[in-house]
């Protein structure tokens, strides 16, 4: 592998890591507040469809982004009503949301565009265009760091940079603000938060809606940044890989960035090479595809650094009378 191939691989890793990163941070907010969310996949898919549909009709990627976030937020609100207000099973609600999105996107897509569930291909301003970071071409000639900056970091759509900034933002909100402290507390010991006179329900709704917003960004990037339009089931398990990344990162924002980049790299490797030779052994592509899941199971098993989830995760909070 020459330097150019490595740079291209890193470039596409960053591209492919972005939807994972948004979804992973989405799950981070939700699960830190004690609400399990296996509906990341469905929210992402719904956002992908509605952003592509709105962008196709309006010709603006930004209108698409708004529509995608609105769709994802409504599903997040549904998850909130089911799991916070009615204290239903959060996992089952997530499963239902995944199916709802998988079915409705194709059904409505067929009804609106008559293209077998696809949206029309997006062109021009209906997609997020790649932007060059300042001085990208000037710094090109600097050894090693120059190409890294101009070829890997520069030249992505704006959402990729929003994704990277979201990591900083999530870290700041969760670990440096009063809201973040309370949000984390509600995922560990909601009774204590309630005793302190802070609304458990309010905090959890806030977390679930932030989760919806971030999933909306993930889906919009998928349909209007990474590809040009919506196709059936285009999220293709990314919501679950994001969930895996979240566990891999042990529910921490910076580690989430690392985990998503790693899983993005695995996907980029799988896309580029049919088989990978490692120390004389040929690894099949299917192993590369399964690797994020295998790694997650290993981490969950606690043989390599135990992943301990928020303590009150999955438990509906019942106020004592």
């Amino acid at each position: 592998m020459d330097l150019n191939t490595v740079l291209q691989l890193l470039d596409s890793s960053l591209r492919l890591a972005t939807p994972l990163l948004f979804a992973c941070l989405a799950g981070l907010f939700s699960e830190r507040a004690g609400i399990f969310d296996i509906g990341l996949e469905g929210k992402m898919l719904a956002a992908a469809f509605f952003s592509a549909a709105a962008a196709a009709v309006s010709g603006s990627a930004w209108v698409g982004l708004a529509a995608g976030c609105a769709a994802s937020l409504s599903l997040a609100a549904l998850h909130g009503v089911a799991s916070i207000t009615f204290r239903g099973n959060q996992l089952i609600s997530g499963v239902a949301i995944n199916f709802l999105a998988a079915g409705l996107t194709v059904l409505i897509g067929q009804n609106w565009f008559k293209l077998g569930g696809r949206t029309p291909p997006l062109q021009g301003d209906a997609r997020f265009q790649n932007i060059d970071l300042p001085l990208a071409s000037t710094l090109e000639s600097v050894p090693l760091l120059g190409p890294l900056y101009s070829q890997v970091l520069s030249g992505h759509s704006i959402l990729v940079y929003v994704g990277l900034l979201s990591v900083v933002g999530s870290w700041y909100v969760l670990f440096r603000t009063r809201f973040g402290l309370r949000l984390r507390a509600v995922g560990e010991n909601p009774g204590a938060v309630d005793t302190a006179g802070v609304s458990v329900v309010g905090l959890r709704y806030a977390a679930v809606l932030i989760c919806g917003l971030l999933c909306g960004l993930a889906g919009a990037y998928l349909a209007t940044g990474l590809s040009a339009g919506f196709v059936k089931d285009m999220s293709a398990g990314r919501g679950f890989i994001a969930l895996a990344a979240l566990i891999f990162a042990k529910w921490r924002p910076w580690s989430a960035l690392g985990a998503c980049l790693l899983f993005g790299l695995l996907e980029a490797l799988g896309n580029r090479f049919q088989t990978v030779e490692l120390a004389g052994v040929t690894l099949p592509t299917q192993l590369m595809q399964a690797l994020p899941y295998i790694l997650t199971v290993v981490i969950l098993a606690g043989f390599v650094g135990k992943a301990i989830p928020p303590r009150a995760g999955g438990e509906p909070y019942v106020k004592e009378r």
Partner: protein
Amino acid sequence: MNKMPKWADVALIPVINLILALAVSALVIAYIGENPVQAMKIMINGAIGSAYGWGYTLYYATNFIFTGLAVAVAFHARLFNIGGEGQALLGGLGVALVCLAVPWPHWTLALPASVIGGALFGAAWAAIPAYLQAKRGSHIVITTIMFNFIASALLVYLLVNVLKVPGSMAPETPRFPEGARLPTAYDFGAWLGFTRSAPLNVAFFVALACCAGVWFLIWRTRLGYEIRAFGQSEPAAVYAGIPPVKITVIAMLISGGLAGLMAVNAVQGEAERLIIDSVQGAGFVGIAVALMGRSHPLGVLIAALLFGALYQGGAELEFEIPAISREMIVVIQALVILFTGALDNMVRAPVARLFSGFGKGAA
């Protein structure tokens, strides 16, 4: 507060949930610009209006009985086995290996062997998440989801590289030998009007036997009692001397085995070879079936018949009204899971209040 008659809990609430789910589905159909009443008629007629329809409805129902029972058994131990999909895929591998390994002389010999093969492989795939849950506290929902993806990658690898017919492009195993072919509805039920096209086969009776077996296991054996006690309260079960690790692992092995048995119907009975996606979402339908059936084998049977009819009726619906695509089934399924599973309290609380009101009036 919890003074609801038993019939309300097992029948009234699921029926109200189902009606709500269907009402929202009707709204979706109306939004698409079609008539929901007419759509409903086509679905019912397509599913149970002819022997042809029954042949498919019961075939789908057979799959859902297996996966529904799988989820139900795990539910009794308060374990959420979301990995039915992967366990059924691996069950397919087991069934295929058994069917291809021996030139079976007759199906009566092949069936017991493939039942064992499917159940063993399905149980084996559930064993690792079960062990990790019991011993290491890894959340079983996450591990079983991960194992679904690993199973699908493993199966693609095996079918493309190992089990494929040499020289063929299609990633599927050779056709099973004639002796492993299970009698279909045409063979044993031609007098009922079933035709050769009906995929319904003797695996249906295996499924019915499993319903009875699960009922006996859960409510008539010591192990079943231990599973239920563990599901009700782990500390109480431990105090009573019931080992939690053993119960977790055994409940998941039974669950995985039942999911694996689905392959006897879908792989051996219908496709007669192993293809890439032999499960087609039945593992997930099992969740809806177990929720609707309140984890009782009889309930699972009824819910599986309902979902079988939904699948066959949905296929007919797409044929008659092309504007309503097959995804309508997925939407209805999602709404059933949502209303019976996640929004259960929305219906339960008002109904319970209604009954406690009656109770006070009578007293």
